[in-house]
């Protein structure tokens, strides 16, 4: 009917397709096979997100320890409510940790930097970080300098 080499070539074609898809998944989109790491949720309220968005990085001392999973407006306090997923292995966030929104580079992505305090108690799933610093707003800063009131 049809010879073996045709079957072989078609098989190779399919393998090439799968290899290309694997390449797109692993190398291009950076999908790691253990991306479903255990994590717990921590909340924080900010005055100004300044462009922080979902999937943003959460880092401590420059090392990624989680990601921003949701951003919403808290109507009562009129502040931004950020939900973060922190990897379960990072369980040493103290309750007096400070969360600040920072920029990678001058114009890069916004991310949440967390620095730990000295408290004995640690944040659990669903806890809130109260000590926060909002994003540095470049336009406000320039505006303040221009009008001569540099005390912001």
């Amino acid at each position: 009917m049809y010879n073996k080499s045709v079957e072989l070539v078609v098989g190779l074609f399919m393998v090439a397709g799968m290899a290309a898809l694997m390449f797109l998944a692993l190398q291009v989109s950076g999908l790691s096979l253990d991306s479903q790491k255990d994590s717990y949720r921590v909340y924080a309220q900010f005055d100004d997100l300044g462009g922080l968005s979902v999937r943003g990085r959460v880092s401590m001392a420059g090392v990624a320890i989680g990601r921003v999973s949701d951003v919403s407006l808290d109507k009562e306090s009129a502040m931004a409510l950020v939900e973060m997923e922190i990897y379960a292995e990072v369980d040493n966030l103290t309750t007096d940790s400070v969360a600040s929104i920072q920029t990678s580079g001058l114009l890069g992505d916004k991310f949440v930097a967390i620095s730990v305090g000295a408290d004995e108690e640690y944040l659990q799933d669903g806890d809130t970080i109260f000590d926060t610093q909002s994003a540095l707003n470049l336009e406000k800063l320039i505006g303040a300098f221009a009008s001569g009131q540099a005390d912001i």
Partner: protein
Amino acid sequence: MVESIQKLGRTGIEFISALGRSGVFLLRAIMGLSFTRKGVGLLVKQFYQVGVLSLIIIIVSGMFIGMVLGLQGYSILVDYGSEQAVGQMVALTLVRELGPVVTALLFAGRAGSALTAEIGLMKATEQLSSLEMMGVDPMRHIIAPRFWAGFMSLPILAAIFSAVGIFGGMLVSVDWLGVYDGAFWSNMQSAVEFDADVVNGMIKAVVFGLVVTWIAVFQGYDLIPTSEGISNATTKTVVYSSLAILGLDFLLTAVMFGGL
């Protein structure tokens, strides 16, 4: 006056009946897949004809499109000092848009027209009716293997196209223009989401595969059995496929990325 309205009516009726015929035809082609030893053999043979033989044009065009994207992206981004972002630009362009769309356009020209001409000639030389006379269902033996082979080949080809294109972009921007390769890959990985970008691109390729192969096979099966009819149908396959691909691409993009 009356005659021109009558003509319009006839065109309308013909269009709608062709639409109905093609719908029934699609259903029969989908149902015609058989997993007997012989059915699989026919499918493998068509896979070779439709998929494997399209591989060269896909790889070469993917390579060049990726290289051009790398070059153009670099020359624009270097003005802003952010030439590291060329990786994410090349990857997103290819995975979301150019991979599926260009693959489908090339596939319509390379494989779709061949399918139409082959089936058309079979019809014109009455091979299809003789098969039917012998009690062999042409739907099962001729149409369904070709339809399924084309439908399944296109996503594979699109994945290969994107992968080769990204490789080509890397060759130009990293190896030639000197973009730092760590930043190239890490920017790309942080920008490309697997489920949002790669999977949506593959969904596009699946839809285009269905539409292109459907148009090609139906145009071949439904043509007027003369040499002129075959040439008309082949032209129609390429024109209709290209229009359908570009139109559907806009619709799919609007649904997937436009927040509809």
